[in-house]
């Protein structure tokens, strides 16, 4: 009996002794340690240091004293946000105090006016207006045989089938105008799934390279992005895609995917140029932040981060057209649709 007690005591001692020895007391929550962790994670994972010519060591050296000296959590969050703002990347953000507290870099295209109001299209150009059951997509008839589909966001998951319902309603469509202006992005997989409704076969529409090493130049080789036929219905007749400077992230993936299709023409303005795939991280104090972990390339291997994807036909609304509640981009798309699908 004695030896069993001894063995049990030894096991217990080893078990409890090992826990702290192996795992440690947990990461420090002092501001210097928190700052160092965030800085280090960006150093390990952020994808645009080289492309944007950012000296991350110098940035860290400049902001660390401010972070350590921050008088409050709010001030500390501001210092971190200012440091991350140096990356000029809309996919980089800090969420310190819950849902409504996200701080991110505002690009010039976040605030530029594109004179676009979707309700004017419904009011002035469409003869019928409907929306899918969960409201993700609004659509209507623009002219005989020409349908209009508005996708204001790719947020959420699992609703790419809404496009099947739209295509089911637009059985007489000879051309479809797909409007993603002011689409701030969301779910890349969803956006590619929706794009799959407009292709007849698999096509490569771009490439990504992920950070995969400690050096800022360590990336995977090209990983092809492919759009493949999806859904119960597909539309492979002429598609006119409308874009503008308020198209970010997954909306740009969608644009990239549709640009690879021979039946698609893009009309409007260049997109915002926010291509970095986001990676979410958390801090020891519970705050979360997000960073870009890849570089996305067009099929011709051009980086469009900060540049955007240019349309085939440039058309922009103006203050004057807005005063008349006209949408010049839509009008150009409608005219174009009539020429390609008479």
């Amino acid at each position, binding site marked *: 009996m004695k030896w069993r007690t001894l063995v049990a005591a030894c096991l217990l001692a080893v078990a409890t002794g*090992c826990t702290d020895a*192996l*795992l*440690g007391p947990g990461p420090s929550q002092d501001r210097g340690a928190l700052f160092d962790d965030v800085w280090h994670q960006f150093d390990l994972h952020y994808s645009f240091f080289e492309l944007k010519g950012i000296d991350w060591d110098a940035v860290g050296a400049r902001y660390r004293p401010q972070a350590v000296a921050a008088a409050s959590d709010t001030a500390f969050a501001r210092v971190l946000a200012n440091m991350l703002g140096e990356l000029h990347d809309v996919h980089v953000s800090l969420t310190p105090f819950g849902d409504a507290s996200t701080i991110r870099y505002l690009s010039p295209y976040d605030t530029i006016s594109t004179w676009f109001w979707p309700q004017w299209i419904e009011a002035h150009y469409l003869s019928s207006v409907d929306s899918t059951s969960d409201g993700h997509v609004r659509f209507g008839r623009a002219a005989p045989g020409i349908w209009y589909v508005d996708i204001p966001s790719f947020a959420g998951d699992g609703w790419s089938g809404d496009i099947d319902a739209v295509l089911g309603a637009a059985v007489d469509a000879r051309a479809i105008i797909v409007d993603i202006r002011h689409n701030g992005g969301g779910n890349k997989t969803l956006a590619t799934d929706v794009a799959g409704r407009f292709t007849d076969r698999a096509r490569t529409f771009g490439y990504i390279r992920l950070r*995969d090493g400690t050096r800022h130049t360590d990336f995977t080789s090209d*990983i092809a992005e492919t759009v493949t036929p999806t859904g119960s219905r597909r539309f492979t007749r002429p598609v006119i895609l409308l874009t503008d400077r308020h198209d970010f992230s997954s909306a740009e993936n969608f644009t990239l995917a549709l640009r690879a299709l021979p039946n698609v023409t893009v009309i409007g303005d260049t997109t915002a140029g926010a291509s970095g795939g986001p990676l979410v991280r958390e801090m020891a104090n519970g705050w*979360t932040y997000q960073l870009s972990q890849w570089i996305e390339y067009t099929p011709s291997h051009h980086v469009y981060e900060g540049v955007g994807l240019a349309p085939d036909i440039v058309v922009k609304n103006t203050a004057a057209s807005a005063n008349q509640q006209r949408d010049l981009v839509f009008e150009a798309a409608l005219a174009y649709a009539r020429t390609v699908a008479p």
Partner: protein
Amino acid sequence: MPMPKPTVTPMAACLCAALALPATMRAQSLVHASREQSLSLATTFTAGDRVDASASPLPYGGTGFGGAASYQSSVGQFLFSVTADGSRSFYVPRTGAPTSARESAFASRLETSLVRQSATVVGGRVGLGLAVLSSAELLEHQYADVTSTRAAYITAFGLVGPLTTWTRDAAGGRARLSLDVPVAGVVYQPYGDARVEREGPRLRGVTPSQLRAADAALRYDFAVRGAAGLFSEYRLRGFALKNVEPIRSLSHSLTVGIVERFGAQRDR
């Protein structure tokens, strides 16, 4: 971020003692002409703590459950064993950090070992051998960000190391103490979230300087005679891998199972 240096000193001490003792003790032949085999099935409850820096700098703690199947065969002094187990675990931040983040993990392991029982120490037979461990884990981390992002981190290992056992009949049953210390191998650890597109798996070598791991177990078979019986096992696993994103974990598990013996010497 300063990290405490992992230590497995108690484990290493046990291993050294086990390795050294057979040389000083009287060797005892345990030659058996025939073969004994057994199959066992078990269910496992696990409690553990972990830090996987791929997902978070925070330590997480939690519990899990799982099952294991094992085959053992002994011929003469040699004992061959294959054990497969799988588990599902759920974790919350260990330090009470102000976050609603959560982790869960699917883990599977396949361990193959060969031990030569060659000496008697404190009334029990000491065995020395080699263990080869293959393991894979899918860790799902739900962040407390605005969109409750779920990320998946996959790690897989192929590790090899010495194994020592000590077996003694006691209280009508049989106790078996084992210590397995993986020292080297290969690891598959993607650089980030496995949900995004990745290239094919790339294995990296794990050297003894990067790895600190030990797996200690105490098993008790309640009866050594008869075709079938019950057994119980306590297991302590420690693991620390120094990498770009280090991983550290410690778990305790309690197993209860049945064993079916067959072969000519099942009553041995």
